[in-house]
């Protein structure tokens, strides 16, 4: 049995109603648009044909022209050229497939339709969500360019837009995060058996801002930010993760370079037949710390190895062997 779905699309800012008949298999399917005649509506005659088309493997759309049936638009008016426009716009319903293009087109039509109807511009737009749009509607090579273009489109509407987006992987640089003029970040973590929520501003071009993480509660009045309080983030919360920062990466670099230098030193000692068994043991301890991400401990042990090794090989150890890489206080645990 073919399935029936109610759909809508926009033509010159008017919301038109349609029904989409889809074959059982997942598709993609070739499409057919079935248009009603003068004084007709989409429920009249057309469904029979649509069912047959769907049974034959086509996605079939029936719809009401503007001013007819369930569609918006002035009644008692029939201008063939407008109906041609309606038919053309029906291609927005691509078997319910939403593309960035169709979303953009819908926003544009709604925006200017609203402007024409009410003489007012939409001042606020929410895109909920960019993550979904990216995942379902723009796979493939050009997604960055599509996002750039979509954001440019929103900018040119000169409305204030809020784009909901999930930062799934901190290692990747998501286009909307660096193109946006600001970022409000919501945090959520488990504190014992309580769910804690907080909000922070990460970026705000052209304005100073409160840079603390503030607790947030969701009440029957919506979301309330507690401005007097500061969120006590717990280890492992999203608010704490940024501390695993590039600065920590510097320590990692430092330790791994040091370990490599020691290994070269050990090879050298073997060549000179200097006993270094104990240093090898200490080095493996340093490597174990390193593996367990105890970078401070690893650095300490490795530094001791390094100076001991240099002494034995006979090179004079420099007073402070290797400069400890600078790090912000946060990294110290």
């Amino acid at each position: 049995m073919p399935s029936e779905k109610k759909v809508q699309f926009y033509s010159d800012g008017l919301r038109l109603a349609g029904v989409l008949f889809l074959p059982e298999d997942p598709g993609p399917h070739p499409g057919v648009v079935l248009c009603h005649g003068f004084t007709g509506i989409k429920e009249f005659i057309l469904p029979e044909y649509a069912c047959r088309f769907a049974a034959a493997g086509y996605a079939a759309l029936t719809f009401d022209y503007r001013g007819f049936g369930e569609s918006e638009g002035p009644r008692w008016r029939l201008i063939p050229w407008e109906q041609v426009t309606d038919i053309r716009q029906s291609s927005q319903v691509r078997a319910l497939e939403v593309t960035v293009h169709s979303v953009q087109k819908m926003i544009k039509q709604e925006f200017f339709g609203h402007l024409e109807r009410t003489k007012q511009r939409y001042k606020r737009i929410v895109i909920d969500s960019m993550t979904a749009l990216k995942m379902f509607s723009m796979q493939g090579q050009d997604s960055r360019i599509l996002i750039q273009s979509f954001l440019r489109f929103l900018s040119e509407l000169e409305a204030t837009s809020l784009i909901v987006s999930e930062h799934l992987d901190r290692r990747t640089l998501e286009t909307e995060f660096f193109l946006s003029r600001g970022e409000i970040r919501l945090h959520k973590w488990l504190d014992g058996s309580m769910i804690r929520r907080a909000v922070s501003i990460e970026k705000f071009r052209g304005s100073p801002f409160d840079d603390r993480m503030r607790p947030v509660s969701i009440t029957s009045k919506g979301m309330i930010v507690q401005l007097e309080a500061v969120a006590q983030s717990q280890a492992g919360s999203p608010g704490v993760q940024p501390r695993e920062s590039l600065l920590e990466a510097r320590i990692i670099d430092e330790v791994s370079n040091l370990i490599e230098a020691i290994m070269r030193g050990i090879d050298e000692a073997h060549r000179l037949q200097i006993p270094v068994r104990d240093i090898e043991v200490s080095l493996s301890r340093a490597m174990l710390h390193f593996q367990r991400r105890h970078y401070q401990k690893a650095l300490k042990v490795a530094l001791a190895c390094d100076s001991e090794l240099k002494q034995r090989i006979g090179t004079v150890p420099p007073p402070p062997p290797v400069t400890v890489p600078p790090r912000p206080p946060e990294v110290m645990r």
Partner: protein
Amino acid sequence: MISGKIRTGVPGLDKMLHGGLVPGRPYILSGPPGAGKTILAMQFLREGLEGGERSLFVALEEPPNELKINMRSFRWNLDDLDVLDANSDIRRFEPTPILEISTEEEPAKMRSIGERIRKTPDFESKEVTVHSLQQLLKNLLVKKHYERVVIDSMTALRYFCMREFEEAVTTQSFMRYLAESKVTSLLTLELPEEGEVPPEAFLARGEIRLHKLRDESGIKRFISVEKYKGSSHDEFVYPFDITNAGLTVHTTGKPAGGT
């Protein structure tokens, strides 16, 4: 040390760079979104303008009208700054003519930039590619003899103006072109919050990195000089502030967390 360095105009940073930047070379300014890259870059250009140097800002991330408004609170005189709008228009999905950014396009003086965003024209849409931008820069550098150039940002250039398969080679050739053009350029680079530094950092003559860390007391910002070919530099990470005077690096206190 090479004599005749030029100042970045950021209090404290020139000290970290042991006098400033060696002129005529490209430098990377990296950091996560919201670290303060654009402000630092603007401070670098303003320093040039004050000394009568011709300066160019190539905007790939932000429309120039917003840039102008955002910089207003610093009360810097940027009137004579040339701004090249290299933001691509809304892409067309219908087969309408796409206009590659003209290689004859002229930058606008900051003072003449309007309040509102430039709108994509109905029938043609401007697209910036790395090739057209490079050609355009080539023409501009010959004509206007810029001494300081900012590209904001290299990330946008890579993401929006190149095909994915050509990224590595094209980025390299673009940086090489800048190096040969003998202009002192500052290229901003977006860093992810974690993980690897993008390859542009390896190609430049130096890298100034901004770090952004969050704890209970708010966002803490730090700056470090990661690499500086042909000059000694400070190895430490120092805290900095953004106030209405721009960035100020605090090199007088002890380095951040240094032990």
